[in-house]
C-alpha cells in the first residue's frame, strides 16, 4: 500500500509584482493566479488520492498578507479534507506572534509544525513526516541539526524551508542552511524542501525542491508545479513532477546593434518577443525584453516606447524592457578640437575613477551629451 503526498512550496501569496512591471489590475490578477495555483494543487491531490499536501514554507508573504488571506487559506484547506495539510512555515511566512499562522483557527485537517526543530507527525502506518517552522524571518539554524531518526523500520520524510548550500543560486538568500548529505545521514528517506524557486528533484540526494508553482520573476521559467511524492509499501520513494502553471515568464534578447533609429530598435524587440512568446497564452505571459548590443549613441532606446510597441505586437500582458546596450562609440576615435571630442575625452577620464554607480551615470551622461551635441533630441533612458 503506497502513500502519496503532493509537495509544494514558495507560493508567495500576496506577493508584490512591481518587479515584473505589474501593477494595478494585472498585479491583482497575478495574485489571484497564485491563489488559483493553490486550489489547483488541492484538486490535483484529490484526483491523485494523496494522503497529504505538504507546503514547505513561503506560503504567503507576511509583510503583505491581505485582510482575507487567512480566511481564504482556512477555507481552502478545509475544502481539501480529509487530505491532511502539513504546513512548515518559512522565512517569508515565519511563525510570528500575530501572524496568520498563529491567529487563524485552522481546520482539523491542518497540521502546523510550530517548533524550530524537526518534530514528527505520523502520516500513515510506517510513514512519518518531520517538520519544523521558521520562528523568525532571519532564522539561520540548520534544519537537519537533530538526532538521527528512524530505526523503527518506517519511512521518515523531512519537511522544511531551507537553503541547500550545495545548489544555492547566485544571490539567493540563506535561510535555514543545510547540506544535502545530511538528509540521509539523519535517517530521512527524503527532504521535502522549499526556498529555491527553481524545481530540483535529486533522487540520489533525496532532496526535492518543487519551486514556486507560478513564475514570480522573469528568471523563473517552466516547468512549474507541485511534485507528487509516492512512498511505496516497501519504502521506496518516487517523484512525479507536475506542470500546471498558468502563467509564463519569458526573457527575449533583442540585438539592436544594427539599429539606426528607435523604429529599428522596436522592430528588433518585437521580433525577439514574437519568438519568445510563441505558442503561449499572451494574456498570461509576462515578457522581459533585453536590448543588447552596441548601438549608435544618437539612436534612442526609449524603453517605454519599446514596451508599448512590444505589448501591442505580441500581446503579452506585461512587458518589461531593459536597455542593456552600450553606445557604439570609440572614445579614442573621437578626435579633433571640438566640444564633442573634448566632452568624450572628459567622460573617458571621469570613467577611469568611477565606481559602478557613477559609471552608470557617466554612461547615460555620455549618451545624452553626444545626442545633445549632435543636435538630436535627447532620448531619456
Amino acid at each position: 500500500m503506497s502513500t502519496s503526498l503532493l509537495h509544494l512550496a514558495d507560493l508567495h501569496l500576496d506577493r508584490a509584482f512591481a518587479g515584473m512591471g505589474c501593477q494595478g489590475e494585472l498585479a491583482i490578477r497575478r495574485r489571484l493566479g497564485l491563489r488559483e495555483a493553490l486550489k489547483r494543487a488541492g484538486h490535483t491531490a484529490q484526483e491523485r488520492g494523496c494522503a497529504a499536501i505538504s507546503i514547505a514554507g513561503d506560503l504567503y508573504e507576511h509583510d503583505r498578507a491581505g485582510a482575507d488571506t487567512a480566511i481564504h487559506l482556512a477555507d481552502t484547506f478545509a475544502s481539501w479534507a480529509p487530505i491532511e495539510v502539513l504546513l512548515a512555515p518559512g522565512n517569508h511566512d515565519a511563525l510570528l506572534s500575530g501572524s496568520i499562522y498563529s491567529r487563524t483557527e485552522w481546520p482539523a485537517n491542518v497540521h502546523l509544525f510550530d517548533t524550530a526543530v524537526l518534530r514528527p507527525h505520523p502520516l500513515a502506518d510506517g510513514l512519518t513526516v518531520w517538520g519544523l517552522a521558521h520562528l523568525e524571518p532571519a532564522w539561520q539554524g540548520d534544519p537537519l541539526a537533530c538526532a538521527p531518526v528512524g530505526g523503527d523500520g518506517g519511512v521518515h520524510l523531512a519537511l522544511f524551508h531551507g537553503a541547500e548550500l550545495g545548489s544555492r543560486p547566485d544571490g539567493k538568500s540563506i535561510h535555514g542552511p543545510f547540506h544535502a548529505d545530511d538528509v540521509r545521514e539523519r535517517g530521512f528517506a527524503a527532504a521535502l524542501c522549499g526556498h529555491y524557486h527553481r524545481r530540483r528533484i535529486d533522487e540520489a540526494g533525496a532532496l526535492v525542491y518543487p519551486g514556486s508553482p507560478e513564475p514570480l520573476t522573469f528568471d523563473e521559467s517552466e516547468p512549474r508545479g507541485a511534485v507528487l511524492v509516492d512512498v511505496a509499501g516497501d519504502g521506496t520513494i518516487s517523484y512525479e513532477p507536475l506542470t500546471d502553471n498558468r502563467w509564463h515568464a519569458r526573457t527575449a534578447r533583442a540585438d539592436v546593434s544594427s539599429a539606426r533609429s528607435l523604429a529599428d530598435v522596436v522592430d528588433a524587440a518585437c521580433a525577439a518577443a514574437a519568438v519568445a512568446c510563441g505558442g503561449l497564452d499572451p494574456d498570461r505571459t509576462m515578457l522581459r525584453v533585453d536590448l543588447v548590443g552596441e548601438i549608435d549613441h544618437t539612436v534612442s532606446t526609449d524603453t517605454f516606447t519599446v514596451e508599448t510597441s512590444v505589448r501591442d505586437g505580441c500581446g503579452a500582458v506585461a512587458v518589461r524592457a531593459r536597455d542593456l546596450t552600450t553606445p557604439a562609440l570609440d572614445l579614442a576615435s573621437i578626435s579633433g578640437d571640438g566640444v564633442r571630442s573634448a566632452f568624450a575625452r572628459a567622460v573617458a577620464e571621469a570613467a577611469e575613477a568611477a565606481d559602478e554607480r557613477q559609471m552608470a551615470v557617466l554612461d547615460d551622461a555620455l549618451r545624452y551629451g553626444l545626442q545633445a551635441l549632435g543636435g538630436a533630441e535627447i532620448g531619456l533612458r
Partner: protein
Amino acid sequence: MRLHRLEIGGFGRLSDFSADFDPRITVLLGDNESGKSTVQRALRAALYGLDAGGPGRPTDRSDWARWTPWAGEGYSLALTYDLGDGRRLRVARRFEQRDHTCQVQEIGGGDVTAQVRVGRTVSPGLVHLGIDEDVFCASACVGEDGLRLGAGDAPAARATEMQEAIERLADSGGGTTGAEALAAISDAIGRVGSERRSGSPLGRAVNRLRQLEVQVEDARRSLRALAADEERLRALEVTAHTAEERRLDAERRWLLGRLAAIAAQRADLESTDAEVAQMAAEMEGTAQLATFPLEAEDRVASLAAEVLESQRAADEARARSEAAAPQLAEVRRRRAEIAAGLRALGRGGAVDDAAVAEASALERRLAETLAGRRRSEELAAAAGRREALRREIAATGVAGTSAAGVEAAIELVDVARGGRSSRVAKLGATVALCAGAVAAALSAASRHGLWALVAAGVALVATLLILSVDRLFAGDAEHARRRLARLCPGVELDGEGLERLAERLPRLRALHAELQREDLRVETLAAEVETAAARLGELAQAAASLASHCEISPVRSRGARSAEETVRDVLDAVSGAAGIDRRREELSAEDAILEQREADLDDLAGDTTARRRAADAARARLVRVLELAGVPSSLPPSEAVVAFRAGCTGRRRHDAAIRRLGELRRRSSLGADVKSLDRLAVELEARLAARGGDPADIAAAEPLDHSRLQDLETESEHARQGAVAASTEAAALRARLAAMRATVPALADLEDERAVCLAARDRGLHQLAALHRAAELIADATRGIHRDLAPRLAASVAERLALLTEGRYAAVNVDTSHFEVSLLGGDRLELVPLDVVSHGTRDQVSLLLRLALAEVLSGAGEGVPLLLDEPLLSADPQRRATALRFLWNLSATNQVVLSTSDPGMVDALEGVCDGQAPAVLTMPSGASTIETTGRVIAMARLL
C-alpha cells in the same frame, strides 16, 4: 590645397562638364540656373562625397538623390587638385549606385584611395584639409552676401550671429554649439522635472510616492489592527465555545440527575403500590382489633407496674421482717447489757475538758522537767572526764606549767633551742680558718706570697664574722632558758630537756584546752539539774490544784512521796476520771443507737402488712381494667398484661396500616403515574442525546434533588450567558472585521504602485544625475575649447588682417566665452567691438575668422580653398572693390573660386588684381559650350 580641374560626367544640371581652376582666383560667371552653384557643390562632393541617406534620413531627400543628373545617366565626377607638398591627386567618384564608388589616385603615383578612407567613406577633403565637411562648409563655403558669417540687417545682430557661427564652428564644426547642447540638456532636465515640481514626471512620482508611503503605513496599521482583532475574535470564540461546553455539560448533568431521579421516582411508585397492597392485607388482618381500647394501655401499663411493684414491695417487706427478728432479739439483749453497765459506772466526776487540757499541759511540763533531771547523769560523767584530764596533765611532767604559760613556754623553748647554732658556727669558723691556712700554705709553696696573705686574711675575717653572729644568738637562748625555768619548774633545760619540753608542751596545751571545756560543761549541767528540781516542785503544786478542781483524790503511795510521784498521781487520777466519763458516754450513745434500731425493726412488721394490702388493691384495679378490654380475668396478671399488650400492638398495626395506606394513596394521587414518568424520561433522554450525553450513563448517575438541580440550572444559565456574551461580542467583532476587510486596501497593490513610483523616482533621479553630469562635462569642454581656440583665432585673424589692411588694425581679440571679436586699430588706443567697425572690415574679419577656424581646426597645413557663391551680391561698388581687393590678396594663401552672375564683378576684380587677369569661367545659359576669357576655358553642355 589648390584645385586644378573638375570633370563632371553628370551632376545635377551639368553633364560632360569640365573646368580648370586658377591657382588664385577663378570666377564662375553665368546667369542664374547656369550651374555655378552646381560646380561648387560638385567640388565639395568630390572632396567629401554625397550623403545618400540613412537611418532617419530618407534617401529620396538625400543629396545623392538631389544631385542626380538631370540627363539621368553618367552620375560621376572627378577632381584633380594639388597639395602643398607638390603631389597632385585625382579623385574620381561614380554615383550611379546609392553606395557610390570612389577612387583616388596620385598623379604619377598609385591608388591612394585607402589612405583617404575614413571608415566606410572615402574623404580626401577630411584627410588632406584636416576638417570634416561640416567645417569645410562653414568656413570655406560662403553663400550669397555671405562674406560675413551671418546675414542680418542691424550690425549688432550680424555681429552676434557671426559670434554664434564662430562658436558653432569651434564647438562642432558648424553643428550644434555647446550652448545649444546645454540648452537641449536643460530641456531634457525640464522634461524629467524635479522632486519639487509637482507637475513634472519626477515631481508626480515623488508626490505619489509620499502619498503611497502614507497609505502603505496606514494599510499596515490597519492590517495590524485587523490581526489583533482576529486574535481577539479567536479568543472570544474559544471563550464562547468553552462556555457553551460548560453549559452543555451542566445540562447533561442536570438531565442525568433528573433522569436518575425519575428512575428513582418510578421505582418508588412501584414500591408504593406494593406497599398499598401489603397495608390493605395488614389492615384486614387486624380488623378485629379496630376497637381495642388502646387508650387504656397506659393505665394498664401503670397498673401492671404498680401491681408488680406493690407485690415486690410486699415480698421484700415480709422478707425484711423475717430477717429482722433475730436482730431485734440481739438489740434488746445488748440494750439490757448497756443498762447494766451504766448502772455500774455510776455518776461521773468534775473532770471537764479544761481539766483534761490542763492535765495534758502538766504532763508535758513534767516530761520536760524530768528530762532536766536526767542531766545529773551527764554531770557526773563530765566530772569524771575532768578528773581524768587533770591526771593526764599531771602525767606530762610539766604539770607545773599553767595553761597561760604554755604558749610562752613553747616560744621560749624554740628560742632556747637556738643554742645549737653556736656549735655549727664554731665548726664553720674552724673550717674557714683551716681553709685559709691551707690556701696560704699552698700559695707560699707556689711562691705566690701575696695570694697567700689574701687567702689567710679572708679566712680570718670569715672566722671572726661567724663567731660574732654566734655570740649574738647565744645571748637570747640563755635568757629564754631562764624564763623557762620559772614557767616550768622542775624541768631540765639542757638540750635533751628542751627537746622533750618541745615535744610535751603542745600536748600540754591541748589537755589544758580540753580541761577548760569540761569545766565549762560541768558547770552548765549542774545549773540545769538545779533548775529541774525547782520546776518539779512547781508542778506538784499545780497537780494538787488540779486534783482539787476535779474533786478527785489521788491514790497515795506509801511513805514519803516525791513531787514527781505527786504529780503523776494527780495526772493518773484525772486520766482515770476522764476515762470513766468517756465510757459512760459511749454506752449511752450505743444504747441510743440500739434503741433506734429496735424501733426500726419493730416498724418492719407493720410495713409488711401495709404493703400486702396495697398489692392486693392494685391487682384488683388491674383486673377490672383488663376485664373491660376483654382479657380473661382468669389469667394471671402478668399473662393478662401480655395479652393486653398484644391487643394494643395489633391495634397499632391496624391503625398504622390505615394511616400508611391513606398516605400512600394520597401520594399516589399527588405524584405522576408511571406512564407520565416514562414519557418524561424519554423526552429527557432525547434532550440528553441532543447534548451529546449517553443515556447509558443514567444507571450510574446519582439522582439529584431540587437544590442540586437548581444549582446546575444556575450554572448552565451562567455558562449560557457567558457564551451569549462572548458570541455577541464575537459577532460584533466579526462584523467589524468584515467591514475592516472590505475597507483595508490591498497592501500588495499599494506596494506595487509604490515600487513603480519608486522606480520612476529613481529613474528620474538617475536621469537628472546623468543629464547634470553631461551638462557639467559639456560646459567644461566648451569652456576648454573656447579657452584654447580664442587666442589662436585672434592670432590668425590679426596676422592676416594686418597684412590685408596694411597695418590698419594692429591686434584682434576674441573673447573666450562667446567669441566676441574686437579690434585694436592703429590709430586707437582701445579695442573696438566688431559691431562698430565698418561693414567692409567686418566682412573681412568674418572671412578671416572662417579661414582661421579652418586652419585651427584642421591642423593639416593645407590652405583651404574658398568657394564663394555670389558673396557680394548686395554690396555697393566701393565695398565690393574693397572686398575683391581683400580676396585677391587672400588668394595668395587660399585659392578662391568665386561665382557670380554679375559681369561687373569680373571687371572689378581685374581692377584690383595688380594687372593680372583673373581666370573667368563663363557659363552661358542654353549653350553647351562654356567660353572663358583669360587662361581657363571649360566646355560644358547644358541641358
